């Protein structure tokens, strides 16, 4: 076996072990202590009985699964955005997904109080609407290029931010304003089996779409002329790829609120470790995102007497990883 393949396999095994360890750590972490032996029994389908089993099934397991899926989805989607937009700093907000979700959540909070279902629905509708508007703007401009998507994203993001400011201005200072702000910091505290189950179809539809379009995503790293002359039906494929990545991101953040840095840092970690930018690196980015978010959420539950917003921890956990890999690969970063 040649060296790059052996190195790639070792890296995948390492990230899988790390993700599994972070998953188990997350199941152990929380206000209500569940001993490791009980966790193993519960995972194996046994029943530890009483409160521990109830906490595990209704809170701990859904939350841990949500953190894993959210990290995986954001890591993969981040990789896709950076590839499609040929921009190492691209994130879901480049086409307005995050801002749309933020506006939808803020509107739901102001109009309906802090009903979890309304906020989830509002965020999901807001993000999908924002991307639909971006796509409509691109169509109106009749210039179906990557740059047009970015410009349209800036327009919709700016509009969403203006509307969010207006909502904040008129929001009730006591509850709504704080809820809007807290939503932008992200948390898995509100994950329930019902909310998780509700977003899973959209999430997995997006992931499946990205898996199926993996080769076209790689070709979109080329300039528009080159990819078109290699047979990529750019207009259709770009819309499909962005639709799938939007479905993944929108389904995640509608439940968790905004989670920063995972979608940005995971693709870089994948590329720096694998030294490849193909679809294997995209999957690796997803796994790295899962491990990172599981670790961040475990810390969010333990560092302080009340739960911390997870976006603080994703940044705190992600920065050292990135700095380490940048240092180790300093000749390749720039």
């Amino acid at each position: 076996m040649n060296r790059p393949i052996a190195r790639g396999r070792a890296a995948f095994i390492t990230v899988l072990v790390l993700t599994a360890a972070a998953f188990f750590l997350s199941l152990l972490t929380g206000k209500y202590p569940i001993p490791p032996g009980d966790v193993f029994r519960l995972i194996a389908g046994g029943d530890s009985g009483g409160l521990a089993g109830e906490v595990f099934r209704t809170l701990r397991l859904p939350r841990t699964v949500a953190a894993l899926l959210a990290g995986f989805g954001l890591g993969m989607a981040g990789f896709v955005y950076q590839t499609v937009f040929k921009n190492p700093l691209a994130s879901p907000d480049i086409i307005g997904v995050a801002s749309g979700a933020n506006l939808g959540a803020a509107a739901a909070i102001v109009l309906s109080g802090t009903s979890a279902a309304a906020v989830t629905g509002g965020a999901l509708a807001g993000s999908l609407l924002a991307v639909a508007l971006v796509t409509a703007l691109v169509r109106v401009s009749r210039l179906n290029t990557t740059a047009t998507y970015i410009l349209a994203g800036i327009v919709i993001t700016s509009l969403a931010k203006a509307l969010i400011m207006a909502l904040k201005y008129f929001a009730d200072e006591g509850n709504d304003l704080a809820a809007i702000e807290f939503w932008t910091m992200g948390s898995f505290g509100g994950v329930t089996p019902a909310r998780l189950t509700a977003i899973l179809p959209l999430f997995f539809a997006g992931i499946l779409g990205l898996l199926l379009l993996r080769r076209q995503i790689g070709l979109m790293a080329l300039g528009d002329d080159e990819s078109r002359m290699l047979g990529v039906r750019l207009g259709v494929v770009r819309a499909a790829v962005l639709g799938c990545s939007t479905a993944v991101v929108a389904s995640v953040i509608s439940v968790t609120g905004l989670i920063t840095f995972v979608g940005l840092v995971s693709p870089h970690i994948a590329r720096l470790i694998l030294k490849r930018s193909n679809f294997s690196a995209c999957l690796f980015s997803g796994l790295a995102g899962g491990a990172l978010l599981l670790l961040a959420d475990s810390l969010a539950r333990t560092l302080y007497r009340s739960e911390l917003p997870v976006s603080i921890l994703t940044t705190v956990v992600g920065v050292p990883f990135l700095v380490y890999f940048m240092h180790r690969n300093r000749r390749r970063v720039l």
Partner: protein
Amino acid sequence: MNGKLRVDGMRVAYGRREILRGVDFTLGEGEMAALLGLNASGKTTLLRAVCGLIPLNGGDCLINGRGYLQSDERRRARLISYLPQRHSRLYDLSVMDVVLMGFNPHISLLASPGKREREASLEALDHLGMKDHAGEDFSLLSEGQKQLVLLARALVQDTGLLLLDEPDSALDYPNRHRVLSLLRNLLKEDGRSALITLHDPNFALAYCDKLLMLRDGLIVRDQAVSGSGAGELRDCLSLVFGAVDVIESRGRFVMLKA
């Protein structure tokens, strides 16, 4: 496989500025033609227009008698391979990954290239002397090596017509001869056609079947090389390059500044 191309009255404009003002020419089966013109004469625009990458203001392009400009990218990529003058910057992709991209028009949207495609890619790289670099990072190759890899990608795309925009610009002297000679042999073997923009007319005289002289948005001369005398070729090349002389040496023509 063949790629007989006919361009009829092609007009292209950027805004109000008309770049091509009614271009006409044909390219026969197995023919290799050089498109010669000064900087900003519209050579790249012409190639992009033939590819269907920019809309025409008038005229049409036909391959084997059929219009194709209205077809989608996938169908066009089965007819034409295009090597742009400036390639995209690609990072963290192996040479093999880059060549395999050439199979995209021929495998279904959701499939991946397999063993057969990998073997064909290695063969194409071998033709161009790049087989030993197959596992290397494309971004770390020299510009000349990258050009050879992209040419291998264009070859595995397996189309009847190749449009190559200065495919030799980053190659050293021996590699220029090697690549143009290889292209010429491939075209003769399987009846493919190629339209190539070149800056050095001497390479066009040495390897191409005919010269297409582009000036003022028109093909002002369509001149076969073989069968022509030095005087005819001098008159042809003078239309674009001004005062030049063409001499014949050991059965080959060479252009000199007069």
